[in-house]
């Protein structure tokens, strides 16, 4: 499989950042908007926000896929 270009990698980073921004703003709106039970939404949202960082930025797949080296 051909290695993606550096520009493609940079674009991917921007998309991940945009998604993270979106999730943070949702968290903010939920946290300030709901008077009760906000944690029920915020807890899964935090997990959802952490995953793209771990998967795309920290490349956790490298632990079991050596071709990404």
């Amino acid at each position, binding site marked *: 499989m051909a290695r993606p270009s550096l520009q493609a990698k940079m674009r991917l*980073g921007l998309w991940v950042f945009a998604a993270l921004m979106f999730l*943070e703003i949702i968290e903010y709106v939920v946290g300030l908007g709901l008077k009760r039970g906000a944690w029920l939404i915020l807890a899964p949202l935090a997990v959802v926000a952490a995953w793209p960082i771990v998967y*795309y930025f920290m490349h956790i797949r490298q632990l*079991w896929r*050596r071709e990404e080296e």
Partner: protein
Amino acid sequence: MAAASPSHPASGHGSAVAHAADRLAINRLGLWLFLASESFLFAALLSSRYFLQGVQRPAGMNQPLGLAISIVLLLSSLTAYRAEMAAAYGDRARSQRHLLATVGLGLLFLVGVGIEWFEAFRHFPPSSGFGTIFFTTTGVHAFHVVSGMLLLLVVYRLGRDGRFTKGNYWGVEGAVKYWHFVDVAWVFIYPTLYLVS
């Protein structure tokens, strides 16, 4: 997970490449284990918030500032990622620029935390229940930010001396992974301290 194998041929270029790949795999596993152990520290701090304070949120939290410093830290993860990718593709100048940008954003984050602390002293001092949790958690996290910045500066200095190449940039990768971990920790700290109610 790839493990080190003693069965590689004892000579030749292939052996050297295989050894380097094994070494890199071991480095990565070691770093991930370290980050896993660090996550227990933050998990303990975050659980103490719920255990001692429930889900009550004190008045006086500077919410716009909390959101702003969160975005700054997320942006620093983007620049850190770009620094690593540039190093992986052999673009040293771009990698160096993004490393410096990451350190700058880390500094901006710390300034924001400093402002937050200044305000927090008035609303919930460290002697109060929530104040104890707030200052301990953000303080431990800020210490990680400072150590990450120092690590990135060391990597920047090494990069300036040409120590990293397209196929050999573990220093950049390791420092950047640590930085991302600091960001992941904040992704959980931010809603726990600022937003939960």
